[in-house]
């Protein structure tokens, strides 16, 4: 009996191959988008985890000098006082234009690192004598290997796949030579198991700050919001994909009612039937989910390089550009596919299980689902209000997302009711029977289409919202770049001495030479970069202040005040009038806050003499040069020749801007890609819903046809109806999208990146999107319309003959 039932159930899919395909495609899309995002997140997290494990980051307390390196003698003094500390020397080097981080650890005292253990346990372990004594060995990633090997003058290179990207790990004795930092230590890590009696740090090294392991800014924390963003997008895509599944399963169940009635009449119990249908759905979910995983894997592979570039650009968080199949996201993808299938078919299954044995096979009963009812609308309003309340009451990134989710879900729930209200208005104002029929027929169709329209609403709103955010950001960023990159030329010399020579040489030929000097301080709020400036009109006129007190520049220049960047201001809630503790001995009033995009860390600006007090040894190798724009190229050439500087050491403003914009564009490639995919999925959802409705619509169309409307007219009306509904939805999506954009710019961005952006409106983009939506709706309706056009009149006549 079971076999017979299975065969009967399967026969439906044999007869409706397109429907089966639609279902599987819907499932695959939903699972694919979701697991692509999960795969990217998992890969990134694995990268952070690897980096943290491999470098033992964040596992130990650290000792930092507040303004610069620690002399080696201090390390020895601490050791000789009993403190078990290990020295680390790190810094960047440039190799053929690429910046690579060198991490030098005292291989004798540093805790065993996995990368080293792995290498030493390999088939051909290096001779540790080679590692600890000149010239030493460099340990690096497979990606960097060829670059380093092609470089003369570097120690021999060993490859390890247990290292984070863009890193050279080596002994501190090798690092001090590479970095030209002989006798310097970047920071010390405090090892576990200190001896019983050691003198307090305040007695022997009062100038060093102890940074607790839990206080260290770790990458995973820093990028948490970015991944939450991606996850939210993945979930949205998944939800939109489920609308397709819902539509298709609903249709399949509707079409099977006759068969199920027959099976029941033949004696198959409802229980057995429900179990078998659930089994059938599970098989479909697994097939669709597996297809989705394959899709997700390739999608993630395609998107990951851009995500990697973004994370590197925004947070300096290196992740590798290689995706690997990891069980956690594969399993979660399959579970989502199964769960989503049952979520999407639960309602249909429930109704099926309640179907009386002898009920008619009519479709009308099926469609009476009151998704347009006011109760749903009230639930929608409640969701919106709840989201807003969550943000007001709790605040923070998660509350921001809750608000966005509440707004999206709530609006989607309100949509059918709102549409039906609009249609009622149209119907009332309609003249003539045909127009009246069209409006009322649309209302009748609304319940069946409402889920697809909800999907469309969500996709459109997301597109408008995210599009507005990205474009606003781009506009702001471009303007900010213009303000920030004011100098026509940027020069980096090899040494401080050469820097002085260059400044001297230039002083008679240009309008101004602006030194760019900074030092990284270990601040209680995390790393703080302190910059020094000299008095120049350039700053007074151009610097992008978002908040300032009176006489801001005069006060900074005379050394009584400090400027902080927006990230620091928001993170620590420090605004003009308050004070910033820069070092234990230097506290200045904050005179202004400036915007500083694309930078995760805190920054502050003081006058040059103040910087010299804090860090007399801060490098003086970089300069901005103000000169008539027409002379920039010529001067750049002259500088290179006079001081024998490599081409990259003298950069023109335009080039710098182009590079910055390129980084910016990379940042949003993934967002745009997900955006377009979501819209595509929504279009597909409309198609499946219309196809579902199509089979149910013949009984309604046939009488109209019989009354004298031609098939061509009916087909045209069919197209018009679909386009009109899509247009109405798009109009409703616009305010929702703008609200979403506002939330992204003013709430999510502030929480995630530490900056708030002004919102700009882009009506042309909306028109484009509207056009795209109408086109998608027309294409989706074209298939049913074409069928209608080609339908033999006999079929329409059959409606009156068949018992339905």
């Amino acid at each position: 009996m079971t076999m017979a039932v299975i065969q009967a159930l399967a026969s439906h899919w044999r007869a409706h191959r397109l429907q089966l395909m639609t279902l599987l495609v819907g499932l695959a899309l939903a699972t694919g988008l979701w697991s692509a995002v999960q795969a990217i997140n998992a890969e990134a997290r694995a990268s952070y985890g690897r980096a943290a494990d491999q470098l033992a980051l964040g596992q130990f307390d650290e000792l930092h000098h507040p303004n610069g390196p620690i002399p080696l003698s201090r390390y020895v003094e601490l050791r000789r006082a009993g403190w078990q500390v290990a020295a680390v020397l790190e810094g960047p080097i440039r190799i053929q234009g690429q910046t690579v981080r060198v991490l030098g650890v005292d291989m004798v005292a540093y805790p065993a690192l996995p990368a080293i253990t792995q290498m030493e346990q390999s088939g051909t372990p290096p001779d540790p004598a080679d590692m600890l004594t000149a010239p030493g060995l460099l340990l690096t990633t497979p990606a960097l290997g060829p670059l380093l090997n092609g470089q003369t003058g570097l120690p021999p290179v060993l490859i390890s796949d247990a290292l984070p990207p863009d890193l050279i790990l080596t002994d501190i004795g090798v690092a001090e030579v590479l970095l030209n930092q002989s006798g310097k230590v970047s920071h010390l890590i405090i090892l576990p198991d200190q001896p019983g009696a050691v003198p307090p740090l305040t007695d022997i090294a009062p100038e060093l700050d102890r940074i607790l392991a839990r206080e260290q800014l770790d990458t995973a924390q820093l990028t948490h919001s970015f991944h939450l963003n991606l996850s939210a997008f993945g979930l949205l895509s998944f939800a939109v994909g489920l609308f397709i599944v819902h539509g298709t399963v609903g249709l399949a169940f509707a079409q099977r009612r006759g068969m199920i009635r027959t099976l029941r009449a033949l004696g198959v119990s409802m229980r057995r039937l429900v179990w078998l249908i659930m089994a059938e759905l599970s098989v479909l979910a697994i097939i669709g989910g597996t297809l989705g995983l394959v899709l997700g894997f390739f999608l993630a592979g395609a998107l990951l390089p851009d995500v990697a570039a973004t994370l590197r650009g925004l947070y300096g968080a290196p992740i590798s550009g290689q995706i690997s199949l990891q069980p956690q996201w594969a399993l979660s993808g399959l579970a989502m596919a199964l769960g989503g299938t049952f979520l999407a078919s639960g309602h249909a299954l429930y109704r099926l299980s309640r179907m009386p044995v002898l009920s008619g096979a009519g479709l009308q009963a099926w469609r009476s689902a009151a998704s347009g009812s006011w109760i749903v609308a009230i639930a929608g309003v409640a969701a919106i209000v709840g989201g807003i309340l969550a943000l007001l009451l709790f605040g923070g990134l998660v509350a921001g997302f809750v608000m966005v989710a509440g707004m999206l879900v709530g609006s989607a729930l309100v949509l059918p009711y709102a549409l039906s209200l609009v249609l009622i208005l149209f119907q009332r104002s309609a003249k003539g029977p045909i127009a009246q029929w069209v409006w009322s027929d649309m209302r009748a169709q609304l319940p069946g289409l409402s889920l697809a329209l909800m999907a469309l609403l969500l996709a459109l709103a997301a597109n408008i919202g995210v599009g507005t955010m990205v474009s606003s950001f781009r506009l702001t960023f471009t303007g900010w770049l213009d303000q920030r990159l004011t100098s026509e030329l940027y020069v980096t010399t090899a040494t401080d001495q050469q820097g002085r020579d260059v400044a001297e040489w230039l002083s008679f030929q240009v309008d101004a030479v602006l030194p760019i000097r900074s030092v990284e301080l270990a601040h209680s709020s995390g790393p703080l970069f302190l910059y020094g400036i000299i008095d120049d009109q350039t700053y007074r006129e151009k610097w992008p202040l978002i908040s300032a007190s009176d006489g801001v520049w005069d006060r900074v220049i005379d050394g009584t005040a400090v400027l902080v960047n927006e990230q620091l201001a928001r993170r620590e809630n420090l605004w003009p009038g308050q004070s910033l503790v820069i070092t234990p001995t230097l506290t200045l009033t904050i005179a202004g806050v400036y915007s500083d995009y694309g930078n995760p860390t805190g920054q502050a600006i003081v006058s040059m003499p103040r910087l010299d007090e804090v860090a007399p040894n801060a490098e003086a190798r970089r300069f901005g040069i103000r000169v008539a724009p027409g002379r920039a190229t010529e001067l750049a050439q002259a500088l290179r020749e006079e001081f024998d500087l490599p081409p990259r050491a003298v950069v023109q403003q335009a080039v710098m801007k182009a590079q910055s914009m390129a980084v910016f564009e990379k940042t949003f490639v993934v967002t745009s890609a997900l955006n377009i995919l979501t819209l595509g999925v929504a279009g597909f959802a409309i198609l499946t819903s219309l196809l579902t409705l199509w089979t149910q619509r013949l009984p309604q169309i046939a009488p109209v046809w019989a009354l004298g409307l031609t098939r061509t007219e009916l087909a045209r009306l069919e197209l018009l109806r679909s386009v009109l509904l899509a247009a109405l939805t798009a109009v409703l999506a616009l305010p929702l999208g703008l609200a979403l954009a506002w939330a992204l710019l003013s709430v999510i961005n502030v929480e995630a990146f530490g900056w708030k952006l002004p919102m700009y409106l882009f009506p042309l983009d909306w028109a484009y999107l509207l056009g795209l939506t109408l086109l998608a709706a027309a294409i989706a309706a074209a298939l049913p319309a074409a069928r209608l056009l080609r339908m033999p009149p006999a079929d329409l006549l059959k409606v009156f003959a068949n018992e339905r």
Partner: protein
Amino acid sequence: MNVRTWLIVLLLLIPGLSRAQGYAGLGGSAEGFTVPQPDYTFQFPQDHGPHPEYRIEWWYLTANLKGEDGRDYGIQWTLFRSALKPHEAEGWQSPQIWMGHAALTTPDKHYFAERLSRGGIGQAGVTAEPFEAWIDEWHMRGDDPSAVNLSANGADFGYDLQLTAKGPLVFHGQNGYSVKSADGQASYYYSQPFYEVQGLLRLPDGDVPVTGQGWLDREWSSQPLAADQSGWDWFSLSFDDGDKMMAFRLRGERSDFTAATWITADGTTTAIPDGEVAFEPLTTSLVAGRDIPVRWRVTLPTRDLDVEVSALTPDAWMATRFEYWEGPVQISGSHSGRGYLEMTGY
């Protein structure tokens, strides 16, 4: 092989610290390092200092101590030097690696700690005049080795002791040229076995004043072990009548190699050739998953010596990166007294 494990392998070249068979291949050559020669003339104070051109060297001090209540204690303080290349250099560029081991043994517990450092930066090293051997805050220092302050700390123990030599330095083997195998591998080896010790032990229950006797071993070489030698048992015995004996057995695959030095109370030494001292394990105890002989019979017929040597506590296991047994012992039989025992390669 990790850098530290590898340091250990270097140390395996030392007879006193040999363990697995795996090191054997390394025992043969001395690439660029100076090799001990039979007719060496010691120069002091220079020879109290380091010899970077030799691969391996140590300052190895053990002491048998008693509390005011008569309770027995033992301490160990060791500084090893291991050279990756036969020279010294400034800063991190130094190829000299230093390792410190400290231990405190009571009748029921064994405490130990370990330190590692590179030479060249000042974190560890030895100066001959004034004499100081140090790693981190651990040190052995005085004007010269005849009177030194000795201190070390671990997480749960520590000690601070004054050591005063009451006798001369003694030289093992042939005037300090100590042969370690039938094939002729050798080291330079002298001792100061006449220290009187007093000071404080720091234990979890509080400080304990102690007095007793100490023994310093100084040894350096570049390839002391024969290829087939897998471990060693080393005894420093101080008898109640004032005589002392240093005796060791290198366990070889082909045959064992033994040597000893008889030291009278006035410091007169007699080298005892291979085969004359006999060592017989009497009882083994399961320590750190291995069978360790913790009670021995040691005989030397030419001196009418027939004693039983037993560990103060069997659990004197040094679970350092390279593991071995090192602890105080009690002597009974034809002679009575106290001493130290080191066993490796079990």
